[in-house]
């Protein structure tokens, strides 16, 4: 006789109860994108991972990859808005990031700037998990000249929109550096996201594109 044992029914019921409770809890809490801790906001101590690579010649970047948060996205050129702030890629394309094309190209000495959306009206976008990056994580930028510029994360910080440190984020640098920017810092119905998550990284290697 094929009779389902009481134990099977109990097992399935318990599994359904646990997964149901978890789904309902996380489905209704809407906790938002990960934010960096205060420890990540401080610059990484110089160590093995922070060696510096020589700068590359200017070349247009085409793609950005951040393996630790599974980002692999094409890059589009960005300008400035009328108010002088960095423009952003079209929000309806969730897996698209942009680079500031009037500035330094990634890998060149100076401060290269990349920005992307944390979310759009439909849900998470390309840099949703940017705030989860940590010291030493790798960021790769494929360039049109056939090189991949490899950057290592020095710090991950959140800055309020009202007190945004322009010089620190966008200011010039002597070595090849990269900033990756997305929205963060809490959200309110009235003002939207209250600030930006900013990743600071510097060039640690360059290799031919795969």
């Amino acid at each position: 006789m094929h009779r389902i044992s009481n134990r099977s029914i109990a097992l399935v019921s318990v599994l359904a109860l646990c997964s149901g409770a978890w789904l309902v809890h996380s489905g209704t809490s809407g906790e938002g994108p990960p934010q960096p801790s205060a420890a990540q906001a401080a610059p990484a101590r110089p160590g093995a991972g922070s060696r510096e690579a020589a700068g590359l010649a200017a070349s247009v970047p085409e793609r950005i990859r951040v393996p630790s948060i599974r980002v692999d996205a094409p890059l589009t050129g960005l300008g400035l808005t009328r108010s002088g702030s960095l423009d952003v890629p079209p929000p309806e394309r969730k897996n698209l990031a942009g680079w500031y094309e009037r500035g330094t190209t990634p890998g060149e000495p100076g401060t290269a700037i990349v920005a992307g959306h944390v979310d759009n009206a439909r849900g998470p976008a390309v840099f949703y998990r940017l705030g989860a990056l940590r010291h030493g994580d790798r960021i790769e930028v494929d360039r049109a000249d056939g090189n991949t510029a490899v950057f290592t994360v020095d710090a991950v910080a959140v800055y309020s929109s009202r007190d945004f440190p322009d010089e620190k984020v966008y200011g010039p640098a002597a070595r090849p550096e990269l900033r990756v920017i997305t929205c963060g810092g809490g959200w309110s119905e009235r003002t939207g996201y209250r600030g930006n998550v900013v990743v600071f990284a510097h060039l640690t290697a360059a290799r031919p594109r795969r």
Partner: protein
Amino acid sequence: MRQVRMLAPAALALGAAGLSVTAGLAAAPARAAEGPGLRVYPATAEPGATVTVNTAACAEDGAADGDASAVGAGAFTLAPSAHEEEVIGQFQVPASAQPGTYEIRASCPSGAEASGDLVLSLAGAGEAVHPRGHVQSGVGGALGPDPVQTTAGVAALAVAAAGGTWLLHRRAQATGI
């Protein structure tokens, strides 16, 4: 005419060779207007600069004739780039060129054409301008309840309740109540 950078995914497939000019990009905050399909980098340069252009308009042709005579740089050739389906070329802006906006053109053997604008600014007119302030890069769409996940959770809880009820029913039968 469409705004290539905003709308056309094809325009994302950029390709440009290394170039020798990075300094002296102009302080014009407005984005240079673009014709269809010809990327000009840097879009804003100063007299004497080397400018790189690329386009996907000549995908099948593998080459194109560039025309930078508007800015006094004459004809140049666009050759296949490392990037698939794109041709790329360079020209040097004459040191005597005057500030202004110039149309750079490329024509393919197949007859297709592409153009883009080059903005010339005076050398030393301004340092490379960097952005100011925060970036508007999210709308909160990833926040708040997720109805799909919540529904799945409720369904799973219903399964658990059904299983529990079934077990209780069996136990009642077994004890002969």
